């Protein structure tokens, strides 16, 4: 074989998760996006109806999310019917959707007994939670 000749490569052995994994992940994406958009749209309409005279400058100057970033703050806000808390919940669902997808990947890699991919997926999940629960609040 001369250096110009391409190496003979055997056809790849295909690795694939079970079809159920793809179906579930599609469902996770659709559900997560649907729920978050419904909550965000509902909250937005309620906000516009409740505060019609608010200016855009006021919206930009006052970020309501700061009151609802703890579990207790969000719970109290939702219980009190706060629109800011509802919108924050919609955003949390939006951010959580890809994270839930990683969780479902972890479940299926573990189910088919792939230790290396399970470890990798678990590490990705830990890093995602680290950003949301530790790094973000710590640097606020």
């Amino acid at each position, binding site marked *: 074989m001369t250096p110009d000749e*391409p*190496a003979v*490569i055997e056809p*790849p*052995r*295909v*690795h*694939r*998760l079970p079809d159920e*994994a*793809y*179906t579930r*992940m*599609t469902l996770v*994406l*659709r559900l997560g*996006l649907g729920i978050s*958009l419904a909550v*965000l*749209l509902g*909250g*937005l309409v309620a*906000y*516009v109806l409740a505060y*019609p005279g*608010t*200016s*855009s*400058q006021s*919206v*930009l100057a006052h*970020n*309501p*999310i700061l009151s609802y*970033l703890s579990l207790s703050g969000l719970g109290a806000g939702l219980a009190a019917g706060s629109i800011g808390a509802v*919108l*924050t919940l*919609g*955003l949390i669902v*939006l*951010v*959580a*959707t*890809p*994270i839930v*997808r*990683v969780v479902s*990947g972890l479940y299926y890699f573990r189910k088919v007994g*792939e230790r290396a*991919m399970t470890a*990798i997926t678990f590490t*990705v999940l830990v*890093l*995602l*939670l680290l*950003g*949301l629960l530790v*790094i*973000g609040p710590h*640097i606020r």
Partner: protein
Amino acid sequence: MDLVLFVVLLILVAIAAGLVGSLTGLGGGVVVIPLLIIFFGASVPIAIGTGFVTILATSSATGAAYVRDRLSDIRIGMFLEIATVPGALVGATVTVFLTHANLESALLIALGVVLFAIIPGSLARRHIELPAPQPQDARSKMLGLTGEYHDEVLDQDVAYRAARTTPALGVMLGAGAVSGMFGIGGGVFKVLALERFLNLPMKVSTATSNFMIGVTAAAGAGVMLAAGYVNPILAAPVAVGTASGAFLGSRLLPGLRNRTVRLLFLPVIAALAIEMVLRGFGLP
């Protein structure tokens, strides 16, 4: 500006951004972030935080179809997330620290430069449907980074294997950092690594990049949300508009997803990038 007008304009801009972003493959963030800063008066970190919202909405709106069609390679995507997620965490943390240090103008200039960097990258894509096969490296063999999909256009089953995983991980770390720092998907860099280093077919690269963009954005968004740099009144209309635009783009106008649309759209990004840099230097 009146609240109703503000919300309606945000939704319209976001629909346009989602539509154009999905047609060009550049994502909505590259349009939404500069417009939020220039026309809506948002601060740089809040615009970046909102950028993550556009990525998450676009990625979830279009990603479901890719996963359903088995084009998205979850195994390869997850393997590369081991690099993009820490990159995004570092990038978002740097953005928050720059904001705390009153260095928003430096962030603005860097954002303008990154927008410029995307332009040649988006034009340089190879558009080779099926790359010539290359040997799998040891890591790719160990993790079984191979796959197969049915190509509707070519009407054949296409099998592929990932090559050169080490440089791909390096590029993905950088792509994650850029995404985390500026709230953009960084799909251009991800597709580049998937096509050129891992040697994946174009359709698999695009779909896997979309899968990865969502997870990478969740890392950056998690930091920015928890640090208080997402304004829900701003983010809600942007999320609704971007998801609608991306959905429209992926369903109604697939025939327009070509080089011409990119060439029409890229001057707009260039103009926005120039404006960002000028503002960063305090010039009118």
